[in-house]
């Protein structure tokens, strides 16, 4: 295996607040190679966004403590000075955000904002930069790009704004694009267009893509590898097909069982995960998911499970032996009860 494009090792981010220290990201490791795509899924407060922001130094402040390493093309993003990090931002790694309206400046023309992004990293003459901006708008599928350069963000629809944001992110040909909930604010039809666009760009430009989302459907369509986060940590990482066909972690099971589906039998009650995520200020002893987990044993409330790698290179953090978990999923996937699955997990059936 070649050296990964970005290798995140044991990244932790905590915020000092009035209520205490919030451990938003708690020892997360992952890596991505050129042209690959990684999905990071999790619920609100799982640390998926903070992790992404931290890579670009966007969480730096007097109240934030960051530890760990993030090696990008031979240098560490965590310990890098602000000036060198600014050179990486946009050029090495670009990021797009959830809300395309608040990410664009309402007073400036879209074209000028893209030109600014181009000129931030190179001494490109305005004329050349403008032509390049038009090319970029064409690349992301905005019709009549030359005329659209002079439009203001409010003249664009939500989907077009997100396309413009992507165009801006691509302006310096980044090797890695971090997309944080890029389609959450958009309609499904437009979402489908944007996901298709991101996938096409990744293939054509050999750009690595990290897609951060709460939507398992989005992950299923765009990511090759998926990391599932819970309470600031990765609890499972699997290739996308395996994540959906043989999920390893009880939290992933819960997520998959709680979403209504577009096909298959209907009318069965949904199976929500009871309770809610723990406080990130006082992390419970043992496994953070134990309180909501139907399979938790006494040991789960005492011992913090490590993220262990299986023979086929997947990772999961659960104290229940791997074989027993794998034996329990098929019945759950078919809509079986947790009580039956528990017997399999405990080895009494």
């Amino acid at each position, binding site marked *: 295996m070649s050296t990964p494009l970005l290798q995140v090792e044991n990244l932790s981010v905590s915020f000092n607040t009035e209520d205490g220290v919030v451990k938003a990201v708690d020892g997360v490791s992952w890596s991505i190679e050129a042209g690959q795509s990684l999905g990071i899924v999790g619920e609100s407060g799982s640390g998926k966004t903070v992790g992404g922001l931290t890579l670009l130094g966007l969480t730096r402040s007097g109240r934030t403590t960051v530890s760990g390493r993030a090696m990008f093309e031979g240098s560490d993003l965590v310990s890098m000075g602000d000036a060198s990090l600014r050179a990486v931002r946009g050029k090495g790694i670009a990021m797009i955000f959830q809300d395309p309206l608040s990410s664009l400046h309402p007073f400036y023309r879209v074209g000028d904002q893209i030109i600014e992004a181009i000129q931030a990293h190179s001494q490109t003459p305005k004329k050349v930069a403008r032509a390049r901006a038009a090319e970029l708008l064409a690349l992301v599928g905005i019709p009549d790009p030359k005329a659209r350069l002079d439009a203001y963000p409010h003249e664009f*629809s*939500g989907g077009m704004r997100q396309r413009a944001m992507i165009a801006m992110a691509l302006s310096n040909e980044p090797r890695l694009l971090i997309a944080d909930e890029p389609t959450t604010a958009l309609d499904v039809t437009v979402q489908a267009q944007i996901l298709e666009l991101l996938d096409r760009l990744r293939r054509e430009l050999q750009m690595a893509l990290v897609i951060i989302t709460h939507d*398992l459907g989005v992950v299923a369509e765009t990511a090759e590898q998926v990391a599932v986060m819970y309470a600031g940590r990765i609890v499972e990482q699997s290739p996308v097909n395996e994540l959906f066909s043989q999920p390893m972690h009880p939290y992933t099971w819960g997520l998959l069982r709680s*979403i209504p589906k*577009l096909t298959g039998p*209907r009318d069965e*009650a949904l199976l929500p995960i009871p309770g809610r995520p723990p406080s990130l200020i006082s992390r419970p002893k043992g496994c953070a998911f134990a309180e909501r987990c139907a399979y938790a044993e006494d040991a789960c409330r005492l011992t913090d499970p490590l993220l262990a790698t299986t023979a086929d290179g997947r990772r999961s953090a659960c104290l229940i032996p791997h074989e027993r978990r794998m034996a329990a999923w098929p019945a759950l996937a078919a809509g079986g009860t947790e009580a039956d699955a528990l017997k399999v997990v405990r080895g009494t059936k």
Partner: protein
Amino acid sequence: MSEPVLKVRDLVKHFPITRGVVLQREVGAVRAVDGVSFDVAQGETLGLVGETGCGKSTTARMLARLIDPTSGEIEFDGENLSGIKGRALKEARRQIQMVFQDPYSSLNPRKRVGSIIEEPLRIHGLLSEGDARRKRVQELMDRVGLNPEHYNRFPHEFSGGQRQRIGVARAIALGPRLLIADEPVSALDVSIQAQILNLLKDLQKDMGLTIIFIAHDLSVVRHMCDRVAVMYLGKIAEIAPNEDLYSHPRHPYTEALLAAVPSPEPGRSGRTRALLGGDVPSPANPPVACRFHTRCAYADAICSAEEPFLVQRDGSVAACHHPLSG
């Protein structure tokens, strides 16, 4: 289908576009809802789906009479709601309640939860002040899965899912017959979303509620609704029983919407997708004839010349010149 409890006929809402500051003159109108008709049976759940700006929320707000329709009729339980005012309107609102999308902005942050849930009782002068109301509020809190002891807490002390439970408790406080849920779970995490959906289904069973369920998430709508109306630019494109709509969409727009939903089954993602191009045209200036013809893969000359009417084929009713065959 049993006798409909809610009948909506030719409902229209135009928001005027004005120019000028002092002498405002009308230069056009956003045709948010432009002639919508449907029936809802007692105890049924009707889903309203469509893209942003298709008029689904405006329709909901007119049904609750939060805004007045430009024209058209809303008949609830044999009574015409569209023109009523004052006491009659207040009385009607006891029967029709609403749950909103954002559990953060729909609860007054300065009021205690007990007082928020009690408010409908207070407005309608139900139960005597003090213990009786407090007891009723605590029953309601218990019913929606909140700890009744948290009566004196403020909204910020609750999580998003719990806040939405507060919103539901407030909506059922008067024992309404029609509940309008406008994107009730779209602000919630998936694991919490399922809790609220199950709660709504339980309440419907217990109270015999009729529900109008608005959502942009087609899989959530499939799970919740008996029938689904698909709206496009202020009009109904197709209305059909749940099974028919999802297995045999008749309107090309329904087909395109379904194809766009990302599937949490990676095996299916290899399918060739009929991607809908472009954006929804402006409702201030909608396309003539069939409003969908500018984005439709099947459109031909007639689609830009003549407006299609809603026509029944099997169980589905669709407004299309070239309906898809099952």
